[in-house]
């Protein structure tokens, strides 16, 4: 099983650690603050309160064979650099470090981070995109020129079959999946729904009100289809 070590248990680190554990991964969670360690102890394989900038502490925890190291010590950039460097020297296979600014990110890459993440910047970007186009639910950039968007089915698509819409010809994009909520009645008589994912919908697939279409294509084509009403 892949082993993860998460260092720094602020809100971000805590969320990463708990979610990895929920996904069945072996997680060691570390923070200087014993209270934070206590809060997470029931969720993860091992939780330890220690100073992670001291290599000896990390070695004592037997972390040499960990596959992933996630460094999320918050605003203390010098600790972040020290820990990233230490994990690299210990031979951790992949190190992901959190940064607040691009300059910090560059330094972290230099000392051995395999990937730098900017949670605050990314969240800000995501929120801005979502607010700017409410019908756009999500966006994944595959390359600088291609991506996948989740788009709420435009009104003009509703009740039409995919072969009639012919999105590949008209917009140069492909519908790879559709998320559709299926209504249901609960035992107590109240209404509810469950999420359903239809993968590679066929030509006779009919788009319904509320469908979220997962669409793959070139960024400029995705931009065009995003504007369809």
């Amino acid at each position: 099983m892949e082993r993860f070590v998460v260092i720094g248990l602020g809100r971000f680190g805590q969320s990463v650690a708990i979610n990895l554990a929920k996904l069945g991964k072996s997680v060691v969670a570390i923070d200087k603050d014993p209270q934070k360690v206590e809060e997470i102890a029931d969720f993860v394989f091992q939780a330890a309160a220690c100073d992670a900038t001291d290599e000896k502490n990390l070695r004592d925890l037997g972390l040499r064979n960990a596959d992933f190291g996630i460094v999320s010590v918050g605003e203390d950039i010098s600790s972040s650099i020290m820990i990233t460097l230490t994990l690299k020297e210990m031979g951790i296979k992949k190190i992901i470090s959190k940064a607040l600014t691009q300059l910090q990110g560059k330094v972290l890459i230099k000392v051995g981070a395999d990937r730098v993440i900017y949670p605050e910047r990314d969240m800000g970007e995501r929120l801005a995109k979502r607010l700017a186009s409410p019908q756009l639910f999500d966006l994944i950039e595959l390359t600088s020129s291609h991506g996948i968007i989740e788009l709420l089915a435009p009104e003009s698509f509703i009740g039409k079959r995919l072969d009639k819409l012919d999105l590949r010809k008209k917009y140069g994009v492909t519908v790879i999946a559709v998320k559709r909520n299926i209504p249901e009645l609960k035992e107590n008589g109240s209404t509810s729904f469950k999420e359903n994912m239809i993968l590679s919908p066929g030509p006779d697939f009919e788009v319904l009100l509320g469908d979220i279409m997962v669409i793959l294509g070139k960024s400029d084509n995705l931009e065009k289809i995003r504007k369809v009403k």
Partner: protein
Amino acid sequence: MKDNDNNTIKELIEEGKFYFLNQKYNEALDYLLKVIKIDPNNIEALYTIGIIYESINNLDKALEYFKRVVKIDSNHEEAILHIHSITENQ
């Protein structure tokens, strides 16, 4: 409210749920909004309208109706859960 109104409301809610279950969302909303005209505080209708809007991903409208439910019944756990899950993902 008269007994007649109560019967009408019950029937309208049943119709609304029937159309919702058959994925006829606009028809379902028509019936339930008629209920709200007769009885603006009908929790079952308000909650069901919230569910319909959420299921068709009209999340702003869904929030509006779940909040109306909570305004009338501050302990309506299901409506509170829906408000939480919608706002968390927005």
